[in-house]
């Protein structure tokens, strides 16, 4: 046995893993392209990216949370709360950067609350964020009395509705965030901590990983991402509804899982999650293009999620 200094096995394994997800995406795309000619046009592809951007934003934060061994069911309501508070500030005439910063702080704070209960309180993530799911939604509803907030300033909306060289700004924003998340996960100590805490929290603690802070960071990033997503959304819709973001958590978790994240913690990939988001976006886009009837859309969604996982499994080996 000669020492093998080549980093190939691991690298190729990671790439291989994401390649499996990519293959799923390509398969789905080929099917749709052969069924509807519009599918493969440039504007439609941009459309798909644009429509996937909000889920991607949420899913990035979710991926970090999942890798660190948790789950965040409260992302939708957190987005709603920061969305309506941000919108209220915007409508009240607070300068745009300040209002946006305010909304992001709200997101961070919600994440901090969940994170604190999980990290310090030692409660189960699923149940804490399930509580958060009710709590933050209730706060958003109470704050607005249940009515959407309209009249967002045009200056704000211009940011989310603009585009650069044909690429919509939301896509650019999310791409930048994804790059950041990738760097955090793969290049910084915090990323190592996420993986370690998700992989074996007790061993991580003994090795000096600040477990509490790491968990806190994951939920705070997730809250922040939810706030960013809400800003993109309210900019695009021109209104902030207290009910926005319902079921976002399921889409985000599905995207992360399709992208190879393990809900047991310790495993996940930013690139995989992005591809997962695009798979879900493509699915919705293609089914709409084909004008599939509502019930069958639901059917197709269910089947394709499972088939995507099976393809992925088949191509990426036995690690569940």
């Amino acid at each position, binding site marked *: 046995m000669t020492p093998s200094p080549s980093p190939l096995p691991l690298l190729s394994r990671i790439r291989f893993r994401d390649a499996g997800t990519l293959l799923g995406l390509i398969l789905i795309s080929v099917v749709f392209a052969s069924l509807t000619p519009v599918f493969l046009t440039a504007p439609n592809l941009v459309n798909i990216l644009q429509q996937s951007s909000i889920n991607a934003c949420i899913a990035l934060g979710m991926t970090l949370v999942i890798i660190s061994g948790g789950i965040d069911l409260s992302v939708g309501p957190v987005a709603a709360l920061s969305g309506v508070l941000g919108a209220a500030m915007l409508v009240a005439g607070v300068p745009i950067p300040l209002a946006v910063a305010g909304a992001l702080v709200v997101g961070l704070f919600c994440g901090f609350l969940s994170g604190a209960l999980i990290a310090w309180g030692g409660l189960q993530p699923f149940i804490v964020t399930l509580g958060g799911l009710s709590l933050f939604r209730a706060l958003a509803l109470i704050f607005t009395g*249940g*009515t959407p907030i309209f009249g967002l300033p045009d200056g704000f909306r211009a940011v989310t*509705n603009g585009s650069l060289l044909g690429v919509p700004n939301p896509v650019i924003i999310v791409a930048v965030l994804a790059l950041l998340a990738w760097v955090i996960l793969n290049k910084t100590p915090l990323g190592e901590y996420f993986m370690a805490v998700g992989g074996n929290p007790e061993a991580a603690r003994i090795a000096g990983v600040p477990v509490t802070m790491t968990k806190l960071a994951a939920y705070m990033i997730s809250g922040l991402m939810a706030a960013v997503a809400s800003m993109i959304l309210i900019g695009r*819709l021109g*209104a902030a509804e207290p009910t*926005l973001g319902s079921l976002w958590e399921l889409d985000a978790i599905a995207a992360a899982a399709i992208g190879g994240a393990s809900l047991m913690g310790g495993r996940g990939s930013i690139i995989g999650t992005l591809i997962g988001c695009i798979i879900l976006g493509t699915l919705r*886009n293609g089914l709409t293009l084909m*004008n599939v009837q509502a019930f069958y859309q639901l059917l197709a969604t269910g089947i394709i999620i499972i088939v995507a996982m099976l393809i992925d499994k088949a191509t990426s080996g036995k690690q569940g």
Partner: protein
Amino acid sequence: QDLAPLNSDSEPDRMDWSELDAKFGQMPVPAAGTKVGGVSKTLTNEYWRSLGEGYANVATKLGIEFVYQAAQSEGDQLGQLAIAENLISQGFNALLFSPQTDANLIPAVEAATAAGVPVLNVNDAVIPSAANYVGNVQKGNGVNVANWFIANRPDGGKVAVIEGQPGVYAAGQRTAGFTETITAGGKFEVVASVPANWSREEAFNAASTILQQYPDLIGFYANNDGMALGVVEAVKAAGKAEQVAVFGTDGISDAYAAVRAGDLTGTVDSFPVLTGEIAMEVALRLMAGQDLPRVVATPQALITKDNVETYATSDMAALRAALLAN
């Protein structure tokens, strides 16, 4: 008495709200200490809050006790049932139910009936065994919009529907009313009819995709106003505000604002506050022993820029007058 299963849109034993006073006289004054309970779908939707407002208007005017409750979210069927049952156990004189689905409140209705408490089914989902129903004709929403297209776009063209949640009665009826009416003449084609689950965001995405695919589309009909407002943004983002007419349903205040601003072409208002008032009146008349028809149809009107100021009033007396003048 064994009632045939109710279909509110086609029940023959019906009357229009406008005939109530003429046929049954002034509202009877309820006894002191009368308690009426309302159970609504959800308060996250302005429509149901307005309905409650209507209930409360009458209750306050007549000085009766009124409790209005709703499930924590749309789709929480058992939660709503629990609420309804809990109200029954508290001894109300009449109950106003707006069920999540056609069936989820049936045990509560049965329990109330057994306890001799009259139950009024108010709008949207239809309890087949309901003895009395107050609400608008769901199909009519879609029919109204389709008629607008037929009248205002004589050349016909491609239109699309953004549906509510799959399997929900109101969504199905509204879509059917629109699609059946508009395609009858053969000039219009419904090129897409896709679900957006009452979500503004999903409606926005679906509309963007549809516009991409059918650049010559001339109109959208959305099953509620929230989704319609999402569609409006998608149309604006695609730069097709001139070409594409967008209609919603419900007549929430934001829809009025959007109609005024010229963003939303129109909405079918079913006047929830007024509906609430009428429903409460009907409940009180039933308690007083009046033998009303099984269905009392509430008003409905297509709101466009032309008539928006007429209907945009919070003065219910004025609104009644305007509707009756029609």
